[in-house]
């Protein structure tokens, strides 16, 4: 059995770590973006589970796929996966994930904002691209979209190149690619944040807390907290 597990389990490669950064949001809150570790996946799965049934803005699709990807990472069934989390005072406000296909090619998986209206998704997606291009020094990032918001944000904002010839492993629509040239052309208007994160701030992001289910669904759907009389 141990041998079979060895066959099923992809070889682990140590990816260069994403150096944490802090982003000052419109509200004055500071979001720390840092890599999650495998031990944190259970908590992340718990955080996104309520979104599996939220149809609005394709949260169900994105949450279900992200859930599967993180579960795959947790149980050693995805190769070279990483996840970056956005935390405000330790509370999870969004996450992005992806993996590397080769040293030159990265694959962007998903972007999930748990708090909306603060551009958390835009900041985290930008952090993910920063990781692939600046830290992993990759030549291409394969990106696809499953929601109109994603399409508009990524494909148009970054002027991505459409590559119908490359299949994306999520299936679905075409691959769009980000190259270092496109990234650097867009960087000034899309990629922000400060490093290093001051120690006290980084400490707030050491332990992830997750929003309560009711609060999370309210944040994502905008469903009224209480009916007005």
């Amino acid at each position: 059995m141990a041998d079979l597990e060895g066959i099923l389990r992809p070889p682990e490669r140590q990816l260069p770590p994403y150096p944490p950064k802090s982003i000052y949001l419109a509200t004055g809150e500071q979001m720390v973006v840092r890599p999650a570790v495998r031990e944190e996946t259970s908590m992340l799965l718990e955080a996104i589970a309520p979104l599996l049934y939220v149809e609005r803005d394709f949260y169900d699709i994105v949450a279900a796929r992200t859930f599967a990807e993180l579960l795959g990472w947790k149980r050693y069934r995805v190769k070279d996966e990483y996840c970056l989390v956005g935390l405000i005072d330790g509370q999870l406000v969004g996450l992005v994930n992806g993996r590397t296909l080769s040293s030159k090619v990265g694959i962007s998986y998903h972007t999930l904002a748990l708090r909306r209206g603060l551009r958390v998704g835009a900041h985290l997606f930008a952090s993910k691209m920063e990781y692939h291009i600046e830290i992993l020094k990759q030549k291409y990032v394969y990106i696809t979209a499953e929601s109109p918001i994603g399409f508009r944000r990524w494909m148009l904002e970054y002027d991505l190149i459409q590559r119908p010839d490359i299949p994306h492993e999520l299936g679905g629509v075409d691959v769009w690619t980000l190259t270092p040239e496109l990234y650097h052309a867009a960087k000034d208007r899309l990629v922000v944040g400060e490093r290093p994160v001051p120690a006290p701030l980084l400490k707030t992001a050491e332990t992830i807390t997750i929003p309560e289910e009711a609060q999370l669904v309210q944040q994502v759907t905008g469903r009224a907290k209480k009916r007005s009389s």
Partner: protein
Amino acid sequence: MRDVAIIGCGMTKFGRREEDLLELLMEASLAAMKDAGLDHRSVDAVYVANMGAGILNYQTGVASALVDRLNLLPAPADTVENGPASGASAIKNAFLAIASGLYDSVLVVGGEKMRAVTGWEATDFVASMTHRQGEYIYGVTLPSLAGMFARLHMAKYGVKQEHLAMVAVKNHENGAKNPYAHIQQAVTMEGILLRPEAVVNNPPIAEPLRMYDCCPVSDGAAAVVLCAAEKAKDAPHPAVHIAGFGQATDIHAVYQRDDPLDLKAVRGAAKAAFEMARLCPQDIQVAELHDAFTILEIVESEQAGFFPVGQGHRALEEGATRLDGKLPINPSGGLKARGHPVGATGVAQVTELVWQLRGQAGERQVSQAVNGFCCNFGGFGNNVLAFVLSRE
């Protein structure tokens, strides 16, 4: 002409709502009727303000559907469409109907369900009111008209991005105190303008306007009950009178106006409202202006006569328009933070003034408010309505 009073008001929370348009309209209507102490037998007529259910929700004949749901049959009912000024137009119709002696008590409800479509479709829907051959075909949207307007105004009067951001910061601060607001979240000048992160936090929409210079796309409804003043004595709350009303139109294509910066319809509507009320801008203690874009709050505050033309941004600098200032503007959070379900906005402005004049505005209550003013801006200023409201 008989005096007309507002004896009840109510609204839904604005924002992204799961209910459909009729449910939102019902929620606001029932809240206003309850507030007015009316049952369904005492509603003589209904005016429903809605701009786009035919396009956004594939629902036409909204007023007819609503009176059925509310059991108000056979009350006469009309849907009023006047772009983003539909709400004030519906109130005007009710006002005229009561003033004329035809009806005694009328329900006015405005609502819109805009999040049924994507943001791009909503933007295009609103753009459909621009001049087809002269503006729309080029890709003009309301933010683009506001952007071109803002650039001209800023160059002429020395208004800076910071002034626009001051409007956003103020209105978000007020909105955070309004449980009905779409966005109940304060923002900081650092976060939306001064810090390097602001390029992402507050991206450009129609330069020089940025995201926080533009109102959100909202669902929601608001309702008021109007009544002949002589019959308003038994209402549970002190009546608020419609002391003045004004309306004016202007040239459709903004670029064809003699001076594109001169919002003649705002001036005309405000002047008429003040004249009817026999009041002047100095008599107003609270105003709700149509800040679909931050620049519009500044310019309307000038054109309505509260500040000299070209000085509106100075008043902002001095804090005159804050909740604790000389003339608080948009204590509700305005369109910027309360949200802008287009058909609901004019009714929501009046609702806020009623709450302010009754002293029911909670944390955002303006002190000593006797007279209030509101301005509902249709098109890009081509159809504007203004009201002056006074408490007993």
